[in-house]
């Protein structure tokens, strides 16, 4: 134990200079979270798992966390792990679950009896806007061309990730927003990127949606053409408008954040918010965001609650329109 403490002190000393400028100075030695648990309701190597491992890495290096365990319980968009977290971690003040709005959709489509209202939101960390793209030889030059075509025929095949996922939901919301018949939506779910890519380049699907980073390389190479992105703000470097900018009232990104178990007191939540805020303020965290091209979407407290409520309503509406809720 003494060795471990010395290690922590040594680590703190090495990074002391960085900490001087950071606002987390108020974080006293006694607020190190010992025996901390990060619960990942998906498999090793996925997006949520990546966030957990980044929190672990940054938190331990900064001396905010010690003895971290990461548990992966994969399955069904997180709805296999969620009840386990609710029941086994209930009342624990040193546990966080990584999740995001993709799980909201899974909760609705899988009709699980519990949801994100059963856990305590702590912070939103990262987000990724989706891109609507077409093959290089597609006749659609702008998002308006595609929207006009969809208005005439909402049954045009549009590709994307798994059914009921964010891409599918964005298509549903978009069709609704342009006044097209959502029940006619013809969504082609691809589980393999290669298949989606081939279908776009050969113009078999008229367009496809995906997280921007998935297609970024092919867009830069000129094999795909981006038409629009789906965030609140235009994506830097994409050079295309958002749906909102062309007058379609749809703004949805896929985001990831952390949640505390149920029955945790307000002070305990505040302490966890402090911890994640401190992790987020580390230069190491900024570096990870940059390296992995994660878009910083840090939000806590009322902002986060509002965002969750907003997304839940939008996702519920879209899934209902598509026929999945």
């Amino acid at each position, binding site marked *: 134990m003494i060795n471990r403490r010395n290690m922590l002190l040594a680590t703190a000393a090495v990074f002391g200079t960085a900490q001087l400028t950071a606002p987390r100075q108020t974080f006293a030695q006694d607020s190190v979270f010992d025996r901390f648990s990060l619960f990942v309701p998906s498999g090793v190597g996925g997006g949520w798992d990546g966030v957990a491992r980044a929190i672990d890495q940054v938190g331990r290096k900064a001396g905010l966390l010690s003895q971290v365990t990461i548990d992966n319980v994969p399955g*069904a968009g997180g709805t296999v792990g969620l009840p386990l977290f609710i029941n086994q971690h209930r009342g624990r003040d040193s546990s966080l679950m990584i999740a995001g709005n993709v799980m909201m959709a899974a909760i609705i489509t*899988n009709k699980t009896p519990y949801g994100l209202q059963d856990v305590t939101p702590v912070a939103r960390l990262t987000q990724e806007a989706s891109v609507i793209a077409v093959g290089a030889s597609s006749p659609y030059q702008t998002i308006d061309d595609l929207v006009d075509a969809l208005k005439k025929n909402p049954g045009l095949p549009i590709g994307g990730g798994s059914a009921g996922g964010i891409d599918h939901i964005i298509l549903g919301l978009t069709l609704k927003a342009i006044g097209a018949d959502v029940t006619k939506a013809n969504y*082609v*779910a691809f*589980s*393999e990127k*290669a*298949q989606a890519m*081939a*279908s776009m380049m050969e113009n078999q699907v008229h367009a496809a949606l995906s997280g921007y980073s998935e297609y970024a390389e092919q867009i830069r190479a000129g094999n795909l053409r981006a038409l629009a992105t789906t965030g609140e703000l235009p994506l830097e470097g994409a050079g295309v408008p958002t749906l909102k900018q062309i007058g379609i009232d749809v703004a949805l990104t896929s985001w990831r954040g952390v949640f505390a178990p149920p029955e945790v007191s307000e002070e305990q939540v505040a302490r966890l918010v402090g911890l994640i805020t401190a992790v987020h303020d580390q230069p190491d965290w900024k570096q990870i965001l940059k390296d992995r091209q994660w878009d910083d979407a840090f939000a806590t407290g009322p902002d986060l609650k509002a965002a969750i409520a907003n997304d839940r309503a939008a996702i519920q509406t879209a899934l209902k329109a598509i026929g999945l809720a």
Partner: protein
Amino acid sequence: MDNLVSLAYGFSQAMTPINIAWAFLGCFVGTAIGVLPGIGPALTIAVLLPITAQVPASAAFIFFAGIYYGAGYGGSTTSILLNIPGESSTVITAIEGHQMALNGRAGPALATAAIGSFVAGTIGTVALTVFGPLVAQIGLKFGPTEMFAIMIFAFMTSAAVLGNSMLRGLASLGIGLSLGIVGVDLQTGQSRLTFGVPELLDGIDVIMVAVALFAVAETLHTALLWRPDGVTVIKPQGAMWLTRRDWQRSWKPWLRGAAVGFPLGALPLGGGEIPTFVSYALEKRLSKRPDKFGRGAIEGVAGPEAANNAAGAGVLVPMLTLGLPTSTTAALLLTAFQNYGIQPGPFLFATQGPLIWTLIASLYIGNVILLVLNLPLISLWVRILRIPPHHFFAGVLIFVTIGVYGISGSIFDVALLYLIGGIGLVMRRYGFPPAPVIIGLVLGPLLEQSFRQSIAIGQGDPGVFLSRPIACALLVVALIIPILIGIMSLINWIKQPPVGVDSGS
């Protein structure tokens, strides 16, 4: 030239001491399980898959590649000395090689099998090096319609994996297809056959089914029905090495075996036996003394063994470049890639170049290691055969139970393992082959998805398959091939009795 540079890089990675150690360990384990009847590379890789959570991807794939190639070498030993095919793909070797062993020529039989495996395995790996990236280029143009056509092609031509009884094979395939339906439908997000059990929403894990059918069922079968019926192991004696005459009779079959094996393995034909049968038939036809076949002709060992190992390299082509597994082992290797968050497919060479070239380089190295391991150590492998099977299988059963619980931490999965294992026992007892279950479970959902994606793209019009030239051509060939095979086997059957009838003497 680019490929050569990449391959050189792969060698530099594969030649590190730790990776050589993984290759050696894989080859050793592979040979051992190849030698043991009833335990194949699919089961071994399924049982060892949890190591993917612990070791780097390159190490895991070097290890698995060693097992994959090693099993091909080891299987021949059991066939020759015991007349029990260690693997389905060494049935022919069991016929011809065992005859050689009975004639006191076990040594040359083992030697021609090992050297033939080396020669053809290396040729196959060279072909993989050359054709892999090419096929990936073509694969970039493969959308759902093309994938559907190529899978129909695979299903139509994979009748041979169904085993001796077509009806039982189809029943097994049906079980696999049904298991494949369980879970959330990828196209609509609706759950199917999950009965409200959240663990079933992601479907039934192919690894678990493989472990249940191959390990649990085999163990229970051994425990219930095994009789110590005094299997006699022929002790290799006399000359261990090939004579000049043996070399002369072997080298052409090796090369022809490689030429037959690689393309048949690379085409999604399914099953490792077909190349060996084709090679055997070819050698018999070309031989000046076809009457020697069935009585210990060395050509009948050299050709099929070579074909078997070249096919092993061929099978990796569709798996790596299209994400399309055509054998049980390939399906498990695909799962191993997915455990690392890597999706095999046309982008694999571009996105995971270093890993893939390291893997391919390790296949070359593995072939050399296997040649060295197999020939001088033959007495060691023979000794493994003396381990009483019940001891061995009891250990396997404990190992897989802990393993399945370890992956998921779920008692539900353990219960499911034994449920499917129990079904597997009944299947094993009544001669239903397990391989079609795995093929159905893996390819069924892929086939369904690509079909529905295609129909959605055609906005409901099935004509979409005919409007795409590659898809259309593949579908036409898929219809013609089984007809041709049927006619050919009918002609063969009329000309001569099926292989194996006269081998029981």
